[in-house]
């Protein structure tokens, strides 16, 4: 029983992180149909921002998590800059494939740029303890407060995002842009501004994900976003990319599969099972668990 609980809690812990990161992927994809591979690296940017601002918070006597607001600011700026400098010019000239390759290039560029900054450098950095330890104890197994908080934040973010895209003017503009770009221009929607806003929100999500990630796994390094981003991307695809609740579902499925494989099958087979599940789900339901098959618009 305690093994099962322990495994479940580890799965939830991993899953909550994947879900939070996957929300960022799915958000951007939902609006501009671009898989933003640099999203994982935005998390790295957020992580380093917090590493450098936490000492300031300590000096000011503020709680350490307040530094997430600075991280949100920095990430949003980096996200908007990426859109303005890289994605927009490429989108204008090329196809969706060019945009995809650009996203991969931006990802590598961010990783290597970060490494070239002397204050960051190649060495991993270890974050301070952000939230107090402890949690709920069931049958001698602890579910950390941080995990519960991550799950709550993911749910809140999911609900807000969903309501935002359904109810607000900007949100409706985003959905219009995603459905038909030329028509939304005719309707008087500023497409470029809408897309920049999308990137700002998506990148801010990366900063929140970075906070929850380093609260549980306190190591920050320049390539931290690559594996994390890949798993979260898989989660988004598994749940149905572009569908906001799907990202959360996918994140938890991946986390739980990883954890249960480690405990009950073989501890070195976790990743193999994650990707096996992905293939099986995509064979049965190509659009993802919550995805609907929609015909290509002509």
């Amino acid at each position, binding site marked *: 029983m*305690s*093994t099962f609980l322990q495994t479940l809690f580890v799965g939830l812990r991993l899953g909550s992180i994947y879900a939070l990161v996957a929300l960022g992927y799915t958000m951007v994809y939902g609006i501009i149909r671009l898989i933003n591979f640099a999203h994982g690296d935005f998390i790295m940017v957020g992580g380093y921002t917090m590493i450098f601002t936490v000492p300031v918070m300590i000096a000011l006597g503020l709680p350490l998590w307040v530094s997430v607001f600075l991280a949100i600011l920095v990430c949003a700026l980096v996200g908007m800059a990426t859109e303005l400098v*890289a994605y927009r010019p490429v989108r204008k000239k090329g196809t969706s494939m060019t945009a995809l390759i650009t996203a991969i290039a931006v990802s590598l560029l961010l990783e290597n740029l970060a490494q070239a900054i002397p204050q960051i450098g190649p060495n*991993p950095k*270890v974050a301070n303890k952000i939230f107090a330890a402890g949690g709920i104890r069931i049958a001698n197994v602890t579910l950390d407060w941080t995990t519960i908080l991550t799950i709550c934040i993911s749910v809140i973010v999911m609900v807000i995002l969903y309501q935002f895209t359904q109810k607000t003017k900007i949100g409706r503009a985003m959905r219009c842009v995603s459905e038909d770009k030329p028509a939304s221009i005719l309707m008087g929607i500023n497409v470029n501004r809408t897309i920049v806003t999308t990137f700002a929100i998506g990148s801010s999500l990366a900063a929140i994900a970075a906070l929850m990630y380093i609260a549980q*796994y306190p*190591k920050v390094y320049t390539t931290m976003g690559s594996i994390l981003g890949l798993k979260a991307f898989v989660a988004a695809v598994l749940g149905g990319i572009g569908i906001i609740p799907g990202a959360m579902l996918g994140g938890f499925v991946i986390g739980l599969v990883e*954890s249960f494989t480690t*405990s009950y099958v073989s501890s070195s*087979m976790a990743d193999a099972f994650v990707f096996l599940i992905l293939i099986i789900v995509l064979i049965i339901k190509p659009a993802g668990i919550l995805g609907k098959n929609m015909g290509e618009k002509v």
Partner: protein
Amino acid sequence: MRKLISLLLVLALAMSVVACAATAPAATEATEAPAAEATEAPAADATEAPAALNEPITLGVISPNTGALAVYGAAVTNAVDLAVSEINAAGGILGQQVNVIKTDDQFDPAETLNAFNSLVSQGVGLIVGSVTSGCTSAITGAANEEGVVLLTPSATADSITTADDYVFRACYADSFQGAIAAYYAKSAGYTDVGVVYCAADTYSKGLYDSFAAAAATYGLNIKAVESTASLDVQDYTNQFASMVSSGVQFVYAPYYYDVIGPYIVTQARAAGYTGIIMGADGYDGTPDYVVEGADLTAFNNVYWTNHYDPTDTDPLVQKFVAAYTAMWGSTPNAISALAYDAVYMYKLAIENAGSAEPAAVRDALANPATTFSGVTGTFAFNDVTGTPSKGAVILSFASDGTSVTTKLVDVIKELK
């Protein structure tokens, strides 16, 4: 304006691609005047005349200067710089000054081979490197083919050196390092032990194998074995929960400092594991990688094996520690000590051989009569495999809750 931005973008893209493809040559830097033509071409043709006297001797260095293990890269290059500056200040080797060409392997086997090839193409015949077993194993074959002497400071995997070739190491091998851990478990009175290791890493897997072999010899019972598929794994809770349910009080976990500090120790304690966590030389540097503000008493009861201890009162050790601290402002770790010894081993071998020609240096190193006294002990390559016979120290971490320090537990000269 638009044109300009897209032009910049293309440039940035091109640069990132080039940066990936050509890291090895780009990362190659000569600290002193590159003396490619001064060193003799590697002994592809061993009948060539040895390098003329008074031309500098060039040592190549391959180390992970960037990437996850950059601490080790800096440890090696700092120690080599120290040793070479000492040697050059004292008149060089056989009256020749020593040059160093440093390359970066990024803790990536493919980049290690690139770095090696770039050194060979610059005519380097004597190389210190690489640091990790995984990277070094990528170039041992090439070193034998090219006839280039490879002296790794710290690659401990048994498979790195084999009989009658150009590959040597300054450290002991894993079959010894894993055995010390098993020996310690037995002498501390543990009979049931567990192992958590990384199945995809040469170092971690090699240590697990040697620990398991020695455990059989010492009559230890390995009750639980768990593994991880990569060194990028962040969560080790399930693995240690399995150790708890099997009831073991001694777990051998051969990982590197960047996993031990932030992840393994705290997660193991959170999973309810209170017994001994034992590791190997990869734990060196852990105190700089612990989470500030967390309960660091988790680090009590963590033991590890290492090559030397900076508090050793041996005059050679104290002289090295003082010189290193004066030059770099920090206490040298074991990798530094081994890299420092590696340079002096080359010096001794070149002096014994009377030339810096790779084949001659190889023979001088392999000669069992060549006894070397260094920071990490007094030893010779008296088995044919290019691994020295030397002792080890057992260290432990101690914590008052807010910081972690290292203390010496035992010095083991040989296994009984």
